[in-house]
């Protein structure tokens, strides 16, 4: 105690004269603004607060531009489809007309002012679900093979090949479908389908023996959405902890039982999310479908008949639209497509988030 008291006194005494001492040492420093040398040195380097704030604001603006873009898209689509909306309202999506000459139901005749989205909604749904029907088992099979069975040296190249499938542009799929897939279906697949399953009414090529149609659209869509579904399935399957697999194997399960109980069951929500994302892609896919679906605004039970889809009719008719009404009707179809894909994608994203939250994205 005795020692410390003088210490404090000394230090206080030292503190008091310090500013004065410095001023004496360097009178110029105290100049007009009264800053110390260190402070002046820091000031001479510039204050980064302004630059920092500007940078921050710029980056926030970049981020906000994404909101702005989505908002602009929605606003422009709504404004540009006003003519049809004010004339038909919701009827646009379910009304049907009757052809005055033949008495047949009719949906879409832009020249005479008949507009109904029914055949396009039908075509989009049929081709997309057909695509899912074909793609989902294959994609899950591929994912199971790649994550659980594939010998290690094959895994990388095979994963790369499926990624490549995702990188091929839609128009090249279309080109290939027109010149390879459609003739293949016409010559070999459709006759077999008509012979064996023709009695169901789903396979009847009497109206349209070209090979174009819903089936061709569905097959090419299936090839296009396969990589998405399989890579997402693979992602959630790899996220399943190894202890799950080991636990099931330790109970004496075979490999398939291990995959079914230990992996697929744990990953099922993520797989459903991947399938829905694939559906979202299929609903909006344009070029390949336009090139093979046949482009007639009709509804047929037969999958081998010509049809059209929402995206296909826009791609096909928009530049040659005959009237403002026609253009507005096509934009309204686009708006519907926009809303549906947003809902589908948002739902899938939420599912994927629920599954992978915390796991794979932070893992690497």
């Amino acid at each position: 105690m005795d020692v410390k008291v003088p210490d404090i006194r000394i230090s206080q005494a030292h503190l008091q004269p310090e500013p004065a001492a410095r001023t004496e040492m360097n009178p110029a420093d105290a100049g007009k603004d009264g800053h110390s040398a260190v402070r002046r040195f820091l000031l001479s380097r510039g204050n980064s607060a302004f630059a920092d704030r500007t940078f921050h604001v710029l980056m926030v603006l970049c981020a906000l531009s994404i909101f702005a873009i989505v908002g602009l898209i929605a606003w422009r689509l709504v404004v540009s489809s006003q003519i049809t909306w004010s004339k038909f309202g919701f009827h646009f999506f379910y009304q049907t007309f009757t052809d005055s000459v033949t008495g047949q139901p009719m949906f879409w005749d832009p020249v005479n002012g008949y507009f109904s989205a029914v055949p396009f909604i039908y075509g989009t749904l049929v081709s997309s679900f057909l695509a899912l029907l074909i793609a989902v088992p294959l994609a899950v099979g591929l994912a199971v093979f790649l994550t659980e069975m594939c010998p290690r040296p094959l895994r990388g190249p095979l994963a790369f090949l499926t990624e490549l499938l995702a990188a091929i542009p839609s128009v090249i799929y279309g080109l290939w479908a027109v010149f390879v897939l459609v003739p293949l279906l016409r010559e070999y697949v459709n006759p077999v389908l008509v012979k064996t399953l023709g009695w169901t009414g789903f396979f009847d090529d009497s109206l349209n023996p070209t090979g174009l149609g819903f089936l061709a659209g569905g097959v090419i869509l299936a090839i296009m959405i396969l990589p998405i579904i399989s890579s997402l399935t693979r992602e959630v399957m790899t996220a399943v902890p190894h202890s799950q697999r080991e636990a099931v194997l330790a109970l004496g399960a075979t490999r398939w039982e291990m995959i079914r109980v230990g992996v697929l069951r744990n990953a099922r929500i993520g797989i459903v999310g991947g399938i829905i994302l694939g559906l979202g892609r299929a609903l909006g896919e344009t070029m390949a479908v336009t090139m093979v679906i046949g482009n007639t605004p009709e509804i047929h039970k037969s999958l081998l008949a010509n049809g059209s889809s929402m995206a296909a009719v826009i791609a096909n008719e928009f530049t040659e639209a005959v009237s403002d009404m026609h253009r507005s009707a096509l934009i309204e179809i686009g708006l519907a497509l926009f809303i549906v894909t947003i809902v589908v994608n948002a739902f899938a994203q939420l599912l994927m988030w629920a599954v992978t939250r915390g796991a794979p994205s932070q893992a690497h």
Partner: protein
Amino acid sequence: MSAEDYRLRSRMRSLTDKLVSVLAVVATLIVVAPLAAIFGYLIYKGASSLNVAFFTQIPKPEGEPGGGMANAIVGSGVLLGLASLIGIPLGIGGGIFLAEFGRGTRLANAVRFTADVLNGVPSIVMGLAVYSLIVSVHSPLIPFSGHFSGFSGGVALGIMMIPTVCRTTEEMLLMVPKAVREAALGLGVPNWRSVCSITLKTASPGIITGCMLAFARVAGETAPLLFTALGNSFMDANLNEPIDALPLRIYNYAISPYDDQHRLAWGGALVLIALIVLAVSLVRFVTSRGVLKGAS
């Protein structure tokens, strides 16, 4: 359960196991088959139609043999350049915000979600939106508005690049260790400087990867160009005029009735796919080594 039952059950289980293994292999083969078919056909049909004229001449009038896609290649270059100018800075900026400033905030989650939504918007809808935003309105506020133009096509493609670039930039920046940022800040470097020359630089291979992927994706897009860039049979790189693009020309030739145009379409498809595969493999090569191993 008797021993006999048990043996039967066990055999069934192992049979199911084998069956599923075979099915998985078959599924894999079925998936790889169209890929092989597409590439085989592209190379077989495309290579025979590639010649000097293909790269140097503009399309001949319909039905006349010969001609090339020089204007489409130039047009694609111009459109993709404009798209990159729009999409890459905005995307990287958004990614920086998500990774450096907005981490964990509600705004960042909203931005991330909106970017994912934008990523899912069908390309044809993007074309419609840009059509009604730029092509159909005549306003002095919007450059090149009021008619079909290369500018509107570039804008449509640029918007489509943003979400991919944004999300990969974010992911790559998040992979940069915190210690690197702290070291920079500890040296008294202002935050903006630390982000630009330390964090971004560390993550740059990954960010370039993201940009290349986005680029490869929009390089093959046709639907957004149908009613924006429209296509043009003459050599024209003017952003104020309709402009040609490789995918547009492939589409127009594929649905035309002339054999010679089909031949050119295959050639164009081969060029396009070669560019895209090159980009994707380059990305794969970059990400399979170095600090960013395992990225993308």
